[in-house]
């Protein structure tokens, strides 16, 4: 039984983890960079400890600083949240060495899941379909493999994931520069320049399965649909996946459990798949060995607290759930509310002057901001997540639409207008969109915006939004 946890993260997920710990009677110490010493999660945590300067390389990505802080304040465990060090085996190893509990899977499982090429090989060995592709060591190799796969291809970073270090390449001429850019992103984020290629599926849905394992048994907690993406960054997620053929759903859930069981997975994790809507086939993408941003939609339909389950697994307890006891009811949709110029897709740091959120039955808001909060430029732009649920998908969509109308964030530009537009978009309301949907929607929004701006004789501004 843990008594104190160092939360090594920031923003909404730090506030989220602090909340569950407080409910469980676990003391929380929040590790903060200089930019976050007075943040909302810092005020919510029982205590705070400074771990370094604002740029994440010196603070949230600094394993030594995080572990030293946990030891200094007498914490028994570290919860890494998502991003930053959450999937870094070095932190798990350092926790072992310092006698701290790492709230996540064992280091060896992080290593396997973090190496996307190794995970791809494991999936194939488990009999799970993977996309045509493989590792490439040189431009010539990339060229010849791409010719075999057929254009377009995706260039991915072996140490990447979550949409980073990922490029779509349409023609042979674009391949070398794209590989260079993908390598740069991988270097900046992970210090591992290896890349691989995969077939690009033009009509695809992104479907992922929530797993929970205790090292012996692995169960699934249903799937999520995360197809509403922009540049491979998720914007809206939901559970369950709408209009998914029941046999395909069952096959995907089985594949995820087979993958987790093969790893003897311990902790909370997600297996991501791509569903080719042209052929009805599914393919393994990657495993994320941590809590995900979109976990609240699974919590909404399962009634579980996934952070509490993570803590129980880290304490070495056996799974307290059997598949028959996991009942998934209703439908939940999450909107990621970001500080950004959503038309241009540019992040927009600043200071929050007002933050009002909807409240009431079937509505949940996870946030790390309040009036007066500073949104620093150093980190990702997520301000809040709005989760609406209903007895069925139409109920969830209509609750979401009304709830979005009661969200008011001032001081920074946000993508709330985008979410309000999506909640009224017939294709989204119908459900089951592919990953190309949001790009098309934004294209239409840009030309509508240009037309509106032309009416106000401000064509120059609209052109900048394309």
């Amino acid at each position, binding site marked *: 039984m843990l008594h104190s946890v160092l939360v090594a993260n920031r923003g909404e997920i730090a506030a989220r983890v602090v909340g569950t710990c407080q*409910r469980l009677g676990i003391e929380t*110490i929040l590790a903060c960079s200089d930019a976050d010493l007075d943040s909302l999660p810092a005020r919510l945590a029982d205590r705070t400890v400074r771990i370094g300067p604002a740029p994440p390389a*010196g603070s949230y990505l*600094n394993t030594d600083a995080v572990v030293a802080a946990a030891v*200094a304040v007498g914490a028994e465990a570290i919860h890494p949240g998502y991003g930053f060090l959450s999937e870094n085996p070095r932190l798990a190893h350092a926790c072992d060495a310092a006698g701290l509990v790492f709230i996540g899977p064992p280091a060896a499982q992080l290593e396997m899941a973090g190496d996307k090429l190794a995970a791809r090989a494991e999936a194939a060995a488990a009999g799970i379909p993977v996309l045509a592709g493989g590792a490439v060591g040189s431009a010539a190799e990339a060229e010849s493999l791409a010719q075999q796969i057929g254009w377009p291809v995706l260039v991915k970073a072996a140490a990447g994931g979550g949409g980073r270090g990922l490029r779509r390449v349409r023609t042979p001429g674009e391949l070398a520069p794209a590989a260079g850019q993908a390598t740069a992103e991988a270097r900046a984020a992970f210090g591992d320049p290896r890349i691989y290629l995969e077939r690009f599926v033009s009509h695809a849905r992104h479907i992922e399965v929530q797993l929970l394992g205790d090292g012996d048994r692995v169960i699934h907690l249903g799937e999520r649909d995360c197809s509403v993406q922009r540049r491979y960054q998720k914007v809206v997620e939901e559970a369950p996946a709408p209009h998914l053929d029941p046999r395909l759903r069952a096959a995907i859930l089985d594949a995820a459990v087979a993958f987790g069981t093969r790893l003897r997975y311990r902790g909370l994790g997600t297996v991501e798949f791509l569903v080719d809507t042209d052929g009805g086939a599914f393919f393994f993408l990657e495993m994320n060995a941590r809590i995900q941003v979109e976990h609240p939609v699974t919590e909404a339909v399962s009634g579980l607290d996934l952070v509490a389950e993570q803590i129980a697994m880290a304490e070495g307890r056996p799974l307290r759930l059997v598949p028959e006891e996991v009942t998934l009811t209703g439908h939940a949709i999450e909107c990621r509310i970001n500080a950004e110029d959503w038309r241009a897709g540019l992040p927009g740091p600043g200071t929050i002057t007002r933050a009002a959120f909807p409240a*009431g039955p079937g509505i949940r808001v996870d946030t790390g901001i*309040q009036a007066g909060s500073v949104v620093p*430029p150093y980190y*990702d732009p997520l301000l809040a997540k709005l989760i609406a649920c209903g007895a069925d998908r139409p109920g969830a969509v209509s609750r979401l639409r009304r709830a979005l109308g009661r969200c008011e964030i001032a001081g920074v530009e946000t993508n709330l207008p985008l979410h309000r537009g999506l909640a009224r978009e017939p294709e989204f309301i119908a459900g089951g969109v592919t990953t190309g949907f949001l790009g098309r929607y934004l294209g239409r929004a840009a030309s509508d915006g240009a037309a509106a701006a032309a009416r106000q004789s401000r064509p120059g501004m609209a052109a900048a939004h394309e």
Partner: protein
Amino acid sequence: MTISNEDVQDILRLLDTLPFSELTLETSRFTLRLQRAADGGWSQETQVLSRPVAAAVPAAAVGPVPAVPAAAASPAPAGAPTAGSTHADASRTQDVRAPLPGTFYRAPQPGAPPYVEVGSQVDADTVVAIIETMKLMNPVYAGATGTVSEICLDDGQFAEQDAVLMRIGAQAG
């Protein structure tokens, strides 16, 4: 410690039985303002007033805590000239500024040659650097035709918005 989502739901259940459309709750730790919107739903504004409590860290532990990599430990102020660089005549140069705050990269990948060096010929559309902001890689364009006369930041250094990254000497003749 503040009011939880469950607490708010309980308060709303109570409010729904009462003829009020607004509630403001002020304590020394937080304020909670609930308002009934035009559509009948509730909106919530919470302000946590408690100040963060810094954990007492034993003196012995203070030493190893900021084990910051040397490169990230003490970034020079954004825009500060790199040691050894020469100040170009400002009247004849054009500044290349950071379009967003973020990390400044001079090359597309590790080990690759930088986009430009002092002395490189550029035109307005030449990509001279990358600024990584909130996970996005943004190319930086020279914005002017001429010769790179100064590179003001080191690779990997953090640049504030509008910080001068480079200076371009105006094209002769």
